[in-house]
């Protein structure tokens, strides 16, 4: 049991330390922002992944992004500049503002709702506490597993 606890604690520590650490630098910002925008040429690809031959947008947009990173320290402002110039569809994912927030919330809300609905169907309150009882031979399911 001690070993089990130690391993669990170590796992938690590793996870938290990974989550708390972050990366900075212009290259990382370019990579991050370039992956948060779409190429607007109609190829339906992420800005940094557009391989559309003869694309008249992606090279220009990448240069614009490079220049904006040098001048502006706030990433949100850079994204807003692009939205003003190319429209809302330049953003590769909905924002966390206004109605767009619903896009992010819904999947998790449905997951939780589904979980609680299903638990009403199949999980009685007694099942919530974990039993310490080992499985007895008589408690086998209908078919052998």
């Amino acid at each position, binding site marked *: 049991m001690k070993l089990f606890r130690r391993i669990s604690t170590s*796992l938690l520590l590793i996870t938290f330390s990974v989550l708390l650490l972050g990366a900075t630098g212009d290259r990382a910002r370019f990579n991050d922002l370039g992956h948060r925008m779409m190429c607007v040429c109609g190829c339906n690809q992420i800005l940094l992944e557009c391989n559309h031959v003869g694309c008249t947008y992606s090279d220009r947009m990448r240069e614009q992004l490079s220049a904006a990173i040098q001048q502006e320290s706030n990433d949100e402002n850079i994204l807003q500049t692009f939205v003003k110039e190319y429209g*809302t569809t330049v953003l590769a994912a909905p924002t966390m503002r206004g109605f767009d927030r619903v896009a992010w919330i819904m999947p998790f809300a449905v*997951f939780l709702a589904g979980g609680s609905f299903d638990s009403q169907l199949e999980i009685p309150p007694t099942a919530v506490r974990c039993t310490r009882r080992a499985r007895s031979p008589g408690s086998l399911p209908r*078919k052998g597993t």
Partner: protein
Amino acid sequence: MPLFGSFALLLALLLSAYCMVFGAIALRQQAIGMPSDRLAETTRRAGIAIWVAVAGAGFALVWAALNNDFSVAYILHHTNRDLPLPYKFAALWSGQEGSLLFWAFLLSTYGLVLRLRHKVDVKLTAYASTILAAVQLFFLSLLNFAARPFSLVAGNIPPDGNGLNPLLQYPEMVIHPPMLYLGYVGFAVPFAFALGALIMKYPGEKWIHITRRWTMVTWCFLTCGIFLGAHWAYSVLGWGGYWGWDPVENASFFPWLTGTAFLHSVMMQEKRGMLKTWNVWLIFSTFMLSILGTFLTRSGVVSSVHAFAQSSIGEWFMWFLAIVFVVCLYFYIRNRDHLRSEHRLESLLSRESSFLFQNLVLLASCFAILWGTLFPVLSEWIQGHKVTVGPPFFNRVNVPIAMFLLLLTGVGPLLAWRSTSWASLKRNFTIPVIATVTTAILLMVFGVRPWQDAAHFYSLMAISLGALVTTTIVSEFVRGGRVIARHTGQNLLASMLTLTRRNTRRYGGYIVHFGVVVIVVGLSGAAFNQQKEQELGFHEQMQIGPYTLVCDTSTEEENPNYQISYAILNVYKNGKPIGQMFPARKFFKASQQPDTIVANHSTPIEDLYVIYAGKNLDTDKPIIKAFINPLVMWIWAGVWVLIFGTVVAMIPPISAATVPSLQQVRPSTVALPVSSEPVEAGD
């Protein structure tokens, strides 16, 4: 031939109408005790005849393609004289009308098998056959009234056709759509059985036993179809990736996710009599999602790069979907008492609860993808402007879900049915947890930096959890193998083989899980992709990672179908020559469209993926784009493992083969002792 094809389709429509209407009448007569055997038999034979008629129509279209019959508009628009023979055959599913005819053909083939095997359970099969005839009626109505494949060209017949879309002129495209359609269409069979069982309040779980193999075969086809599509995208589209979260790709994923959930949750019903409502709705949803996917991709409701499939038939699918939903809901409300669970969960630490969570996670993933696919439409409707829901959304929502799913895949098999004790948890989890942590540490030692960005973090998580699942699977095989070795004196490997043969469903399932792990490891390599673009003149070189590409020459060739320009590159790894690569671009004459031919040097460690992006007209130098994509080969290898596991899971276990007399006993009516129960593959 066009006349013959049109007649065959009309005949098939009439036969399906007969099969549905008179099938329903025969079932009604049966229910009130009137003799209806002869009428039922005629409807079954009509169902078989549908196949003959639809196969005739399919033959007529292929014949027209092979003989360059450009009087048929479909042939004119999707083939040309110089198109190679296999692609002329593939023209059957290259466009809207042809693909619907192909769909109808596959549906009638599934129907044929179902009706020929009616002795499995005559009454239930009669219900399923009638429901399937209703589905056939819909597709045949589409083919006769809305998307007619044998429409004739108005005015003069052109001497040559427009040709096939160049992106489709690739060997995998000859087999990718059939596989995908086999998957989509196949879910109609378990759907028909489930709805039939619900309507007739069929006792027991026999409908699950009958449909389990149907569902597995269908699921396997869909899996193959999805990954063939991914491989095609990787090899042909030339953007260095295999999955772009395009609505059409997403559409194929919906039924796959719910189908996967169904394959797992039916075990709960078989073993514990639980989740009956859940299972019925899962298979209803899987079928409806197949139709919804088709509606989304053919209606133009969502914008997709697969624009060639869009038309006005979306409304037909929407109405069909609505009718299917209403019918399912009506019979569910009427007969829901029949679906009451026999047991409820006894502990959250049990195999049942892991199945339940796994199902929830799969459905959450399915909903998230569906939601993301539809959100631009919803946003435009509510906010008045469209938003893009691209890969960042899908990745951010689905990758954590996939990690949780992988965790459950590792944990689930180690939990006992009904409840698991702490002692058992400790005993079973110590080694897998140690393997997981060790893998994570080793990955960090060898250069994975999870603190640098989310992609590295998720890669580390994926590979570590993959180690957890693998350890679990190996321990399950070893533990079971040891028990058999003790009793039989066989060596461990032979014992594990015997173990697998005795319970093919369970151990085949573990092999499938291992295949998933291999795929996940391959996918996690994407975090370390590199790319570079450069103009490469004669004898100039470019460096990417350990590879050096030197341009030997660039040249052009021509044949009746296309012109091709390509570069010949000498490739060196760490200074040592490893061969030549020939990235190319084709220009198809009939369709006047370009196409990329990717050159790929694939190894288990990484792919060197090179594209000829055209020539700079100012400098006359070829533009070369190179990618290093680590671990991609693992994805394709994982699919093979997955297929192998599915095949193993479908093989009847040896205990069933050696006890033939037991198979004649109806499990729903006779309760047998545990030791002598008829063994279905998959216990």
